[in-house]
């Protein structure tokens, strides 16, 4: 393991973080708020940490898979560490635990917050908070790779280390092109949503920060009541559209932009994703009508926003789901576990894996009838390899084990069972709000300090798709290997 090479690549991530901190400090200056110095100093410290390895360590385009892997995971951890600085320097309500929780929640695009009154925070700090979503949504390394000139083999290794295994399966482009597609779609969607929200009457600052949070499927709002604050159905419709789009594989969106609209409807992952959301909305609407909302239009409006928000792992809110009936809670929990498509900014188990498991179950039933038959599993017209299926099953099992363990720890800390379970599901799926005391209109501020550390750890596990993190803990990862 060549640590100096790892340091050099982490330095790029640091430089990018510092750039956003400095932009945030400029915003702070524009709005004449008190966050200017905390943001500027954090930006400078982060930049100095980034500049030094870049100057000291010579450039290299050959890195090993293990180094690439360490770079990807370390970039997340280091970004979370330096990302805490503006919060720590700001002070109340950010203790070390709270600052860590808020930063991890931001970078992992979870959107769970410990801030009870977000509207008292200065604009600069709110912009930094939204930026952590935007940087984390695309993935720090992908962000870096999309801007830097071609890095040779290192780019391929880093791309493979950063992007989820399931998303990789569906990207049929070379690493360089895939990175540019991701960055292009991501940037394009953000710009489009910002313009659309401004046209709907949102202030420029709110439009940018909410676009950052939507496209990254994050969920941090600049308002205490989240999207409910705006009381504007047009804004809700715009956000709904962009939440749905952000939950679709970026390569599929790119196909549509390139004029291959049929690709979109041909994809059974997209079809399942949209159908599941529709069914979820129908069930919730029927459940809410009468008891919670007298008018059908209100039931449809709030059910669709909340189900899409949770089903894409965004976490914005227009209603307090904690007071909804238990059937609606179950639907919300299902979507918080499943979330959206791989290759998007969404978290959770992902639609692709759920669909794969469903197809594998059908395959097994068919095999019971025809034991010698060779029945391949197709996903978006591609045959799924056996190891992909095995990995998916293993992923879901480990995912659920982590959910169970985290719920257990939180319950032991005195958190009620519903809040502990839904909070964990929301954290590992990078969804944001849970149910109970951590509902859509509540915060995580009342969770005990150790609980916040457990939840931030599960957020990281979810964002790094579990195995990437655990791989770091294996001895084999640290053994000497030859460069790629």
């Amino acid at each position: 393991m060549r640590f100096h090479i790892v340091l050099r690549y982490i330095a790029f991530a640091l430089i990018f973080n510092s750039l956003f901190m400095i932009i945030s400090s400029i915003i702070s200056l524009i709005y004449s708020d008190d966050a200017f110095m905390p943001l500027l100093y954090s930006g400078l410290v982060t930049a100095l940490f980034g500049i030094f390895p870049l100057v000291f360590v010579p450039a290299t385009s050959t890195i090993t898979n293990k180094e690439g892997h360490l770079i990807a995971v370390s970039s997340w951890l280091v970004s979370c560490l330096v990302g805490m600085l503006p919060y720590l320097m700001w002070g109340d309500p950010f203790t070390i635990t709270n600052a860590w929780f808020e930063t991890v929640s931001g970078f992992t695009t979870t959107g769970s917050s410990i801030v009870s009154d977000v509207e008292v925070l200065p604009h600069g700090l709110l912009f930094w908070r939204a930026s952590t979503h935007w940087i984390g949504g695309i993935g720090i390394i992908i962000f870096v790779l999309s801007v830097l000139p071609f890095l040779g083999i290192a780019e391929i290794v880093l791309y493979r280390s950063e992007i989820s295994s399931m998303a990789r399966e569906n990207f049929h482009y070379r690493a360089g092109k895939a990175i540019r597609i991701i960055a292009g779609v991501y940037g394009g969607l953000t710009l489009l949503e910002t313009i659309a929200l401004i046209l709907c009457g949102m202030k420029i600052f709110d439009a940018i920060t909410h676009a950052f949070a939507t496209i990254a499927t994050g969920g941090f709002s600049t308002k205490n009541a989240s999207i409910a604050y705006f009381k504007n159905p047009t804004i809700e419709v715009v956000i709904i559209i962009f939440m749905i789009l952000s939950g679709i594989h970026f390569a599929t969106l790119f196909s549509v932009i390139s004029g291959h609209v049929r690709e979109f409807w041909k994809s059974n992952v997209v079809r399942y994703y949209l159908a599941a959301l529709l069914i979820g909305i129908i069930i919730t609407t029927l459940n809410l009508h009468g008891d919670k909302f007298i008018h059908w239009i209100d039931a449809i409006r709030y059910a669709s926003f909340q189900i899409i928000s949770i089903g894409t792992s965004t976490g914005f809110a227009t209603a307090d789901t904690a007071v909804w009936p238990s059937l609606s809670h179950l639907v919300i929990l299902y979507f918080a576990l499943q979330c959206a498509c791989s290759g998007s900014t969404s978290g959770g188990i992902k639609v692709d894996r759920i669909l794969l498991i469903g197809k594998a179950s059908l395959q097994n039933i068919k095999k019971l009838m025809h034991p010698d038959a060779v029945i391949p599993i197709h996903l978006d017209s591609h045959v799924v390899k056996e190891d992909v299926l095995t990995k998916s099953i293993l992923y879901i099992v480990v995912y659920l084990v982590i959910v169970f363990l985290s719920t257990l720890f939180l319950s032991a800390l005195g958190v009620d069972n519903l809040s502990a379970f839904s909070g964990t599901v929301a954290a590992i799926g990078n969804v944001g709000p849970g149910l109970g005391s951590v509902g859509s209109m509540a915060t995580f501020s009342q969770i005990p300090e150790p609980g916040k550390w457990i939840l931030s750890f599960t957020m990281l596990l979810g964002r790094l798709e579990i195995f990437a993190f655990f791989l770091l803990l294996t001895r084999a990862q640290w053994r000497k290997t030859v460069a790629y």
Partner: protein
Amino acid sequence: MGLRFKILLGFLILALMLFIAGVWSIYELNSIGSSVPKMLNENYQSIHAGKKMIESLEREDSAILMLLLGKWDEGRSLLQTADSLFNKNFEFAYSNITIPGEQNQLDTIKSRYESYKTLWQRPIVGTQKEGSIEWYFQSIHNSFLSVKSSLEDLIELNDKTMYQMASNLDKRSNRAIMPGIVAVISALVFTLIFNFLVNYFVVGPIIKITGRIKKFKENRTPFDVPIETRDELFYLSNEISDLCTLVGSKDRE
């Protein structure tokens, strides 16, 4: 980039981190320092004036009771002293308006006090009012309570602002300390990274070069030390390599 620049850069970064943290801490401490007298001047003195006004108002109340009992000289003398004390403190409070809403509060006090004053400015001793406890409770006491409550509101307004300012000071003290803590931790981490890189890119190659020279000296093993960087060590290694080749060829001759 040369070794000299790289090492200098390392120290410069360390110095810069500490320097910025120091400057910021001094700035924050300085603003805390200037906030304390400001808070005392703006709020504490208004609170003090408010308390003095309440005290003089209570003295006036006692003086009115004396007049009701027919004690003309003592009552009038006490009223005059208390009134001048009230006016003095009111003028001070009026010249020290610093909080939004304070002006309105003082205007209310002024109008209420004037109506209160009109009640006792007219003669009491030797009139029907003398000894009339009903008149006292129906007119004087209510007016007295009304002025007192507006004075208490003024004190509360200043109290709240003082509390807010004290909370802000607490925040600012955190901001004065945090850069220092961050700078110290960052400097420690940076020193570790700096040490690691200097060790890897400077000390390591020097040890390798020394070992290779030794081997060359002992059994003429060809000098071959690959240096990743294009700095002084790279040129030194090349020069030594050339020298060894030269010495080797001289030996063969």
